[in-house]
């Protein structure tokens, strides 16, 4: 009887794992099947033309801009905030409140952030529909993610490291910089990878803050269209599933490249941590 139960559970586990992989393979497979026909050098690196035979290079550039700018702002702010909360702040009501706030912020639908960005960055700060408005909005979206994951990885650094370092007559800052942050680095980087995923996958908030101009952005203050927004629009307006799928392929490849390079950098940084 127990044996039977055991087998039953094993089958269930196996089935769940199979289902997960199957869904992934089906989606990716479908996208590649539908879109692969359109992928060519000209499609990726060519300029956009409304007639439909052009490329998506302006959107690729816009996407990379938004990722870069959001992360350049969000990474230092997020890490410093987490370090403050975890290492310096007196653990009291205020810190608990801040923590609760960051936790709640991760759960808010991105369209709400988009509306806020449209009102605050676009209108009040007069940044207009632009890459910078979108990037600032995205910064707010990923900040809680970076803060949470950094805090969690700082928590996993053994207390004995801190004590060992401080007992050698080092300052708190030296201990933080030389021992704690390097040990927490893998966790921090996985938080950054997660954030990159959120930025790339975001469409609603960008739609409301960067607009939909389908042209090469002349600066970060121009309105532009990211790949996800483009993908949404071509599906919505033209019903062009093949084109949307082809954009999907490009997005998947960008995510893979970014993930691999982040893991690579993480390994490089942790040379000492064999």
């Amino acid at each position: 009887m127990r044996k039977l139960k055991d087998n039953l559970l094993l089958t269930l586990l196996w089935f769940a794992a199979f289902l997960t992989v199957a869904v992934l393979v089906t989606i990716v497979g479908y996208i590649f099947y539908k879109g692969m026909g359109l992928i060519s050098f000209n499609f990726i690196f060519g300029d956009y033309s409304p007639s439909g035979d052009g490329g998506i290079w302006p959107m690729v550039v816009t996407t990379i801009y938004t990722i870069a700018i959001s992360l350049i702002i969000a990474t230092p702010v997020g890490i410093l905030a987490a370090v403050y909360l975890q290492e310096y702040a007196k653990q009291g009501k205020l810190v608990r409140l801040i923590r609760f706030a960051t936790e709640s912020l991760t759960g808010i639908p991105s369209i709400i952030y988009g509306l806020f960005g449209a009102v605050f960055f676009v209108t009040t700060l007069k940044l207009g529909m632009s890459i910078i408005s979108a990037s600032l909005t995205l910064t707010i979206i990923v900040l809680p993610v970076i803060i949470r994951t950094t805090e969690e990885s700082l928590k996993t650094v053994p207390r004995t490291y801190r004590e060992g370092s401080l007992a050698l007559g080092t300052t708190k800052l030296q201990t933080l910089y030389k021992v704690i942050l390097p040990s927490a680095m893998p966790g921090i980087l996985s938080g950054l990878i997660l954030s990159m995923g959120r930025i790339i996958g975001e469409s609603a908030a960008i739609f409301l803050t960067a607009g939909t101009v389908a042209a090469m952005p002349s600066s970060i203050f121009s309105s532009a269209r990211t790949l996800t927004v483009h993908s949404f629009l071509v599906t919505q307006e033209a019903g062009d599933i093949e084109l949307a799928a082809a954009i999907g392929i490009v997005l998947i490849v960008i995510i893979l490249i970014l993930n691999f390079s982040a893991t690579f950098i993480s390994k490089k940084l942790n040379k000492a941590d064999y």
Partner: protein
Amino acid sequence: MNTTFVERKQITEEITADNTQLSKQTKISVKDLNLFYGDKQALYDVSINIKEKEVTALIGPSGCGKSTFLRTLNRMNDLIDSVKINGEIIIDGDDIYRSNDVIKLRTKVGMVFQKPNLFPMSIYDNVAYGPRMQGIKNKSKLNKIVEESLRGAAIWDEVKDRLKSSALGLSGGQQQRVCIARAIAMKPDIILMDEPTSALDPISTLKVEELITTMKNDYTIVIVTHNMQQAARVSDRTAFFLSGEIIEFDETSKIFSMPNDQRTEDYVTGRFG
């Protein structure tokens, strides 16, 4: 044993009187030290004079305050917000809780912890960590400090060919000796050891104990231990802690052969604890 308790006490007093004459200088002088974790008092009026270049063992049952006391000597308790301390601890004439230079104190008073706590770096970088943080950058100077420290901790021969490989690849006993080397690298006067062999196997324990007995020529050592035989083997003097108080502090041989206090005797003979 036919001697009565009173007779034994007399003998003890005579021997103590003898020893005060050839005693060494006091390195650490603690007077009426009280320590609180929030509202809970953990140390009660602890007073003790620790002599230089000797091994002083702190023994007592779990939770008696011996580790807490040890950690007051290099102000490691400062890391805990709720700790309050009064009384005085004088090291080389300075009241360490009055003068605010914790960094200087901790370079003078090194510490070895219960479990080896090497950083995830190479053996070399671990030992050079403290000196580097003090601003020593000169390569040959660092090389010299690392070699001397590792020799001082009797581990040089075992690791000299793998200084650049991870310290975490060493065995527990080797790691603990590298921890001792890391402490030595700061050229401290005093080394505190918080149950340094509790996580080690018997052979590694023996090596660390041998090391401690040779180290007392150069350092004042204060060691917390659960292991009564260890206290007897390595220390010159022993303080017996119970519920946050020092019950008895005397030469180790006396504590283990004819203690003054009944509670000490009960503890060292294994009747409780």
